[in-house]
């Protein structure tokens, strides 16, 4: 089974969520997560493999743009189109306050000030949204009994 966390970008909140599911822990600074706020990676628009959880499920993060729920619907339908079942790929949207601005921030990063923006995003997510992210992941883990 594969698990896909989707957010407005794939390198901020959804990446933190995927990291939490894989490691059950977060580093002191979110910037220490591999690929955090890497706008080059995010612009590719492809799922990012973060690792394997304790059941050896592949865990991915994906940036889906401003309409995350529309993307979830499309990916769920794509599974059916390609002949897969919903349990082949579990999809969990991760949403935090202000996340619709993240794609814009990523664009700003691409024209400079990347390091500063990276630190700013880490500080912002650590200031409160990270608790919401962990709670969303734990709810997902509980729902699918991924312990």
């Amino acid at each position, binding site marked *: 089974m*594969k698990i*896909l966390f989707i957010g407005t970008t794939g390198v901020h909140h959804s990446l933190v969520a995927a990291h939490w599911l894989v490691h059950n822990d977060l580093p002191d600074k979110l910037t220490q997560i591999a690929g955090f706020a890497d706008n080059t990676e995010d612009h*590719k*628009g*492809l*799922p990012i*493999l973060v690792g394997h959880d304790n059941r050896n499920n*592949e865990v*991915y993060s*994906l*940036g*889906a*743009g401003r*309409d995350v*729920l*529309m*993307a979830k*619907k*499309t*990916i769920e*339908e*794509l*599974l059916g*189109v*390609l*002949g*897969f079942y919903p349990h*082949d*790929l579990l999809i969990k949207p991760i949403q935090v306050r202000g996340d619709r601005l993240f794609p814009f921030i990523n664009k700003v990063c691409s024209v400079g000030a990347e390091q500063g923006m990276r630190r700013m995003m880490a500080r912002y997510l650590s200031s409160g949204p990270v608790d919401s992210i962990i709670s969303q992941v734990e709810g997902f883990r509980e729902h699918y009994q991924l312990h």
Partner: protein
Amino acid sequence: MKIIYHCFGGSHSSVVAAALHLGLLNRDKLPTPDELMSLPYFDKTNNDDFGSIRLVGNDEYGNQIYVLGKKSMGNRYARMLEGVAEILGARNQLLAVNCMSRVNWFMKLGGFTSRRLGAAALGRPVLEKGTVDAFFKLVNLVEITRFKVMAGSRI
């Protein structure tokens, strides 16, 4: 193979491209308004259809042809779909084709007026003019797509 033609609303350019691919429209002749309106899904979608992958039919090689409306997500959406197919090990089963490069301002304005504002009587004539203007560009896109599919199936 599954071929998904996608545009903003999944209601106009992608539907015409899918119809061309399936032979529902003659590639050598500009379509009439009645022919356009008789196409499945043409100017008939609503907000709930955004993000839905809708089957239009099977082509002569057994490929399934779909349409999708993805709002203003651009090529990112195609990469996202192909990326998901990749992690499922089904990358060679999917081709996502963005029709937005063939869409002109008449189509955008007419489509917006008809679908988003709900003023079909006002929007459709503009939309039909835009679609006729873009028709051979969409024919070209479909020819390229069919060629890609044929070339891919030979590899």
